């Protein structure tokens, strides 16, 4: 009974109900999209996009527009900018990302610090404020998640071929460039709707850590996505309760939980874990000794 009380108590508050739903939706969405991010080493792009939304939010506020829309436009501009800068071949992609990402972050901070009367705390943008999710935010988040997950399902084979084997994609006459851009835009939208939950600074962790954990346990993309979604949801759940009872930042608690799950799997995974690796080496040594 005590446990049930402990679990139910936070949900007496409407803001906690909204927070829980938002965190679960975002956790699952990021975990599934993150599989592409991890497999194609796009973690840096994800981080860059997250930081790029800062000036977008600031400009939208200055112009009196919709903050989410401003963030979204900024993320799309930065992702296309990365492609443009690195496509010429004079600058490597990671360098291009590094330049744009810090430029966007500093521009964002300059703009926000120039707004004296800024109503929203900078720390909420940087580290998220899932407890402040409004019903309207929640509807936008859920709608975005449904559209994105449907697109992932619809384009599943095409993305698979483009990411695994671009040459096959070309011989099958897929529009590789278009599909890549669609994936980047989907990623941008995912990041924007996730910022409310974990903030600019920690979105990349939600995109990377649960998929990386799932990767250690599976050898097929569908099961990687399913496991990743499970770890993402679990992190959100545990993180949110931890933040409620220990009174710590919810975004950080969610990311910290995801990291703990990763570490446990990294050490004890039956196929690729550290323990099994040590054990195999020990068995090998014994066999050579005999």
């Amino acid at each position, binding site marked *: 009974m005590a446990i049930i009380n402990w679990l139910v108590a936070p949900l007496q508050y409407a803001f906690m109900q909204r927070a829980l739903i938002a965190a679960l939706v975002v956790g699952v969405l990021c975990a599934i999209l993150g599989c592409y991010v991890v497999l194609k*080493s796009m973690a840096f792009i994800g981080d860059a996009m997250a930081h790029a939304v800062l000036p977008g939010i600031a400009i939208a506020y200055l112009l009196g527009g919709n903050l989410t829309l401003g963030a979204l436009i900024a993320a799309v501009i930065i992702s296309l900018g990365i492609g443009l800068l690195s496509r010429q071949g004079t600058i490597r992609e990671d360098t291009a990302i590094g330049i744009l990402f810090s430029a966007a972050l500093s521009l964002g901070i300059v703009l926000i610090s120039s707004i004296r009367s800024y109503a929203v705390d900078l720390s909420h943008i940087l580290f998220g404020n899932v407890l402040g999710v409004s019903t309207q935010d929640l509807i936008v988040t859920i709608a975005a998640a449904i559209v994105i997950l449907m697109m992932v399902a619809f384009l599943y084979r095409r993305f698979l*071929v483009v990411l*695994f*084997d*671009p*040459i096959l994609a070309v*011989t*099958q006459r897929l529009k590789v460039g278009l599909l890549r851009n669609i994936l980047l835009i989907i990623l941008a939208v995912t990041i924007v709707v996730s910022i409310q939950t974990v903030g600019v600074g920690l979105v990349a962790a939600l995109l990377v850590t649960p998929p990386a954990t799932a990767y250690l346990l599976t*050898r*097929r993309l569908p099961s990687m996505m399913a496991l990743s979604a499970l770890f993402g949801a679990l992190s959100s759940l545990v993180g949110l309760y931890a933040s409620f009872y220990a009174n710590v930042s919810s975004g950080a608690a969610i990311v910290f939980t995801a990291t703990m799950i990763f570490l446990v799997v990294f050490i004890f995974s039956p196929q690729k874990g550290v323990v099994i690796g040590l054990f195999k080496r020990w068995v090998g040594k014994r066999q050579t000794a005999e």
Partner: protein
Amino acid sequence: MKHESDLTSQKPAELRLVNVTVNFGKNPALEDLSLIIPHGICLAVVGPNGAGKSTFFKALVGLLPLASGQIFIHGLPLGHHKDCVAFVPQREDVDWKFPITVKDVVMMGRYLHTGWLRKPSNVDEEAVQKAMMQLGIIDLAKRSIHDLSGGQQQRVFLARAIAQEPHILLLDEPFTGVDIPTQETTMYLLEEMHKQNVTVMVSTHDLNMASQRFEKVLMINRRLIAYGTPDEVFTPAQVRAAFGERMLMLNGAMIVDDCCPHEEMEEEHGYH
């Protein structure tokens, strides 16, 4: 979305290259290549490292843009033909850490037949089973591609190429870095495909194999050096033109020292 009848009702493909130039960065990797490859032949593409063999193949499938010139498949410009081209990449070009099983990879070869959304049909399942059987990898169907040996990895991609039921089959260095049984399986398979009137093109460093087991040889070194039957192509003057210092004449036998296939410049080209 393409029906099978759509793919097989056409006559086998004829490939025509007209003054094709492909740039690598700012320098031409292939210059002014003009030739006709009739349908159904079995062709070896040879040349020293960096001669543009991989570039040639990648240009043929439309992966690299042409700086000038045109490529026609079956009389239609690249990208407009309906013929199915299968490309077996070099092993270094594949992301072996991708979480995917052997059967998944082979099934990819059927996507054009199945469509992008439909469930694989019985025909698709049978084609995949048959291809895996032919290459002796049926027992590995559920294994991750990461856990395979080099020879097995190559067989997976050969099986996928067969499952595609292609009209043109391109193999980039299939004899490099694999065991002898895999080399033999590959060669046997090429002969089978050849019998089915598929145009087969293979890039290789193995000049012996090129001269003994292929109908025609294309020798390139950034530009066309020679194209014809092995006897016509492997003359001392032409081999010297392609391989330069790396060729030696010893008691009337040609020896070519060219054994480092992994240094080809084409490898890094931004397709990850």
